[in-house]
């Protein structure tokens, strides 16, 4: 979606008709709106959100959400049915042009301001038509789950991309990159109303044996749904428990009597997590080695016997054979020896060659013994390597376990120390921490148990599916029902594979995009890491002494970011996601629209909390990532590096400023706006408050 124009009519403080035309030229993709605090930046952002999503789209920081119509206009109105506010948004999306109009009359505002009028006209191939279900169409173009990532207040996004919002972030990624569509199709195809119904149709016309299996499969499906639901609940609980633990940790860190020990414990817990990851990696390596090569350790006797056989054959001169039977047979069939003598049957020459067949070696036998000899050599080599590898991995595992025990003991010691402190608050916090920790352990164990149950159920389901498929039906109805059920099963499997591949391919791409731009803006040796479930963390490397007190290998730890750094991280994350969605839209996929799409980034005060250095980085890089950028900025946020970078890059295609009319100018707001050496009036004293949108040269 690319925004073209926004028209406001009596919306909040924008009295009368006002408009903004957005720049959609790729090289000048920034539309800049200068506005002092209190002049209407938030209202402008909300005009777009109200237009797209109605009342539900309005941001939490907008006061009196029910008052949409300009207060002065509303107060003077004598005809509430003919007094209204409207927002019109013109945008293009995937080759079509849309005109969205949302309006609300004063009469309706008094009754219920949530109920608005919405229309959506579409222009395609020179023809205009009206969408029958406008809100549905808007949600299909820009799902409400992604709007907080596209239309936002920059000063409030510092936690947007971080771990605590992982669920929302994952959802937005999946929606923007088209993965949610695949998941949704999988869920609906597997639904009781689809798969279950087809199964019932088959059950009604098949054999008793097959019907019984179908019943069992239905039962297994139900259990899978229930178990998956339980797992989801436990996962939500885990997120909540982690948040509580985080709160207690923060309180302990802030408490003078506990701060030092808590900080040490944080380090130890990171170390423990790192050791856990290493243990998992070594165990995986060990498992792989056992499944691939462990057989060689039991092949000692076989190798010895094989060697004896090949040695004996070699001693007897049977291998390598001096002459091969296939060669002699060829001579006899051809009737001529290599010495050019004719080999006619019953001649002494013929009999002499025939006699040689009794001592000739068999070609197949020779080949087989050669292969055996070679295999024995390979197995002997693998035996030693496997023995060494297993010993090394076992040593590593033991060492990691020992280190983990030491770390666990150190953590426990800290717990004992803090728990027995005379300081009542510390002791209380420590007790609460232990409680949450135990709940956490319990929750993780339950999730593990449920995962085990889910794999068992999935295996049983697959067994039943194959068994059902093997039982052939005689009736045409049953055959057709089976074909349909198979088609649904196959479709689900195909979509699951496609989804898995898409995630595998996209995650590293997004990670790279985020990391590259993050490093360009925050130059501190930090890097961004996107986990397998799309959780974003910022890491750094620290050289730590290991448990014996000697220098160990560097440890990667999560960085505790400042508010400004978090804001930059969120901005980079969103811009990278928007950029990837745009690139993905260009890749043809199995269905048009499955892939991502173009989206704008509309940012209210994106530079507010940032240091000058970060402002420069954000102004420089964000417009190069997103296809369209709309920035609302006050003069203090804009002046300096932002102005400099945008001027040099010639990125701004359209520029406006908000002129405020009212009885009093807000504190810190300037009456005039200094732009390119000119002073523009941006405050006009007036009895009635309203804001005017004025255009200036870009």
């Amino acid at each position, binding site marked *: 979606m690319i925004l073209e124009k926004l028209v406001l009519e009596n919306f909040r403080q924008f009295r009368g008709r006002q408009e903004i035309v957005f720049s959609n030229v790729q090289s000048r993709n920034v539309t800049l709106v200068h506005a002092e605090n209190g002049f209407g930046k938030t209202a402008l952002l909300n005009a777009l959100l109200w237009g797209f999503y109605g009342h539900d789209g309005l941001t939490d920081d907008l006061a009196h959400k029910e008052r949409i119509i300009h207060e002065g206009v509303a107060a003077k109105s004598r005809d509430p049915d003919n007094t209204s506010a409207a927002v019109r948004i013109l945008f293009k999306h995937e080759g079509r042009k849309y005109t969205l109009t949302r309006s609300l009359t004063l009469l309706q505002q008094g009754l219920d301001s949530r109920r608005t009028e919405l229309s959506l006209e579409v222009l395609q191939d020179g023809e205009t038509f009206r969408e029958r279900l406008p809100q549905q169409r808007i949600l299909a173009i820009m799902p409400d789950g992604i709007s907080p990532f596209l239309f936002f207040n920059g000063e409030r996004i510092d936690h947007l991309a971080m771990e605590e919002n992982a669920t929302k972030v994952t959802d937005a990624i999946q929606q923007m990159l088209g993965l949610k*569509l695949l998941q949704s199709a999988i869920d609906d195809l597997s639904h009781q109303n689809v798969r279950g119904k087809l199964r019932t149709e088959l059950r009604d016309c098949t054999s008793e044996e097959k019907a019984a299996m179908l019943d069992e499969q239905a039962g297994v499906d139900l259990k899978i749904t229930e178990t998956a639901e339980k797992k989801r609940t436990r996962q939500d609980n885990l997120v909540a428990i982690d948040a509580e633990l985080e709160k207690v940790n923060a309180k302990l860190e802030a408490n003078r009597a506990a701060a030092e020990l808590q900080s040490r414990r944080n380090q130890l817990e990171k170390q423990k997590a790192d050791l856990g990851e290493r243990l998992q990696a070594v165990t995986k390596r060990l498992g792989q080695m056992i499944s691939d090569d462990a057989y060689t350790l039991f092949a000692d006797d076989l190798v010895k016997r094989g060697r004896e056989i090949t040695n004996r054959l070699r001693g007897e001169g049977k291998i390598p054979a001096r002459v091969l039977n296939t060669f002699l047979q060829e001579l006899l069939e051809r009737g001529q020896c290599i010495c050019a003598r004719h080999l006619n049957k019953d001649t002494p020459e013929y009999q002499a060659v025939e006699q040689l067949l009794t001592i000739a070696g068999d070609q197949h036998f020779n080949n087989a013994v050669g292969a055996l000899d070679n295999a024995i050599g390979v197995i002997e080599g693998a035996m030693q390597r496997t023995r060494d590898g297993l010993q090394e991995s076992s040593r590593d595992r033991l060492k990691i376990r020992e280190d983990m025990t030491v770390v666990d003991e150190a953590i426990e010691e800290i717990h004992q120390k803090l728990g027995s402190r005379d300081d009542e608050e510390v002791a209380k916090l420590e007790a609460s921490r232990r409680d949450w920790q135990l709940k956490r352990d319990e929750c993780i164990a339950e999730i593990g148990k449920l995962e085990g149950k889910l794999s068992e159920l999935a295996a049983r389901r697959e067994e039943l599916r194959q068994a059902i498929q093997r039982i052939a039906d005689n009736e045409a109805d049953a055959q057709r029902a089976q074909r349909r059920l198979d088609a*649904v099963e196959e479709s689900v499997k195909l979509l699951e594979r496609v989804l898995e591949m898409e995630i595998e391919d996209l995650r590293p791409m997004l990670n790279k995009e985020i990391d590259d731009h993050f490093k360009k803006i925050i130059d501190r040796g930090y890097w961004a890491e996107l986990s397998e479930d799309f959780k974003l963390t910022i890491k750094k490397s620290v050289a730590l002494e290991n448990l014996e007190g000697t220098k160990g290998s560097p440890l990667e730890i999560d960085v505790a970011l400042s508010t400004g750094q978090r804001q930059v991280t969120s901005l980079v994350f969103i811009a990278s996601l928007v950029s990837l969605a745009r690139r993905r839209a260009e890749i043809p996929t199995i269905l048009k629209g499955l892939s991502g799409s173009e989206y704008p980034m509309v940012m209210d005060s994106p530079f507010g909390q940032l240091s000058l250095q970060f402002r420069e980085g954000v102004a420089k890089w964000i417009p190069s990532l997103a296809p369209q950028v709309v920035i609302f900025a006050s003069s203090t946020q804009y002046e300096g590096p932002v102005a400099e970078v945008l001027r040099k890059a010639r990125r701004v295609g359209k520029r406006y400023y908000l002129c405020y009319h009212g009885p009093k100018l807000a504190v810190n707001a300037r009456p005039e706006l200094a732009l390119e050496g000119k002073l523009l009036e941006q405050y006009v004293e007036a009895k009635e408050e309203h804001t005017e949108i004025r255009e200036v040269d870009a």
Partner: protein
Amino acid sequence: MPESKEQPREQTRSQQEFVKVAEPIQQLVRAVLREEREVMHLKRRPDIHQKILEHVKQHIP
């Protein structure tokens, strides 16, 4: 018409996976995705399962 100079794009892994399955399954999956695309963001979508069943019956006679 001038000949397009654009090189044919290499198929993505998921596209390769998709074309491996039988044509009726490809058609069915395409139809389901098209249907889902219209309603996937809605909280209530009562007809989707019925529509999918109709596609199954149409593509797998």
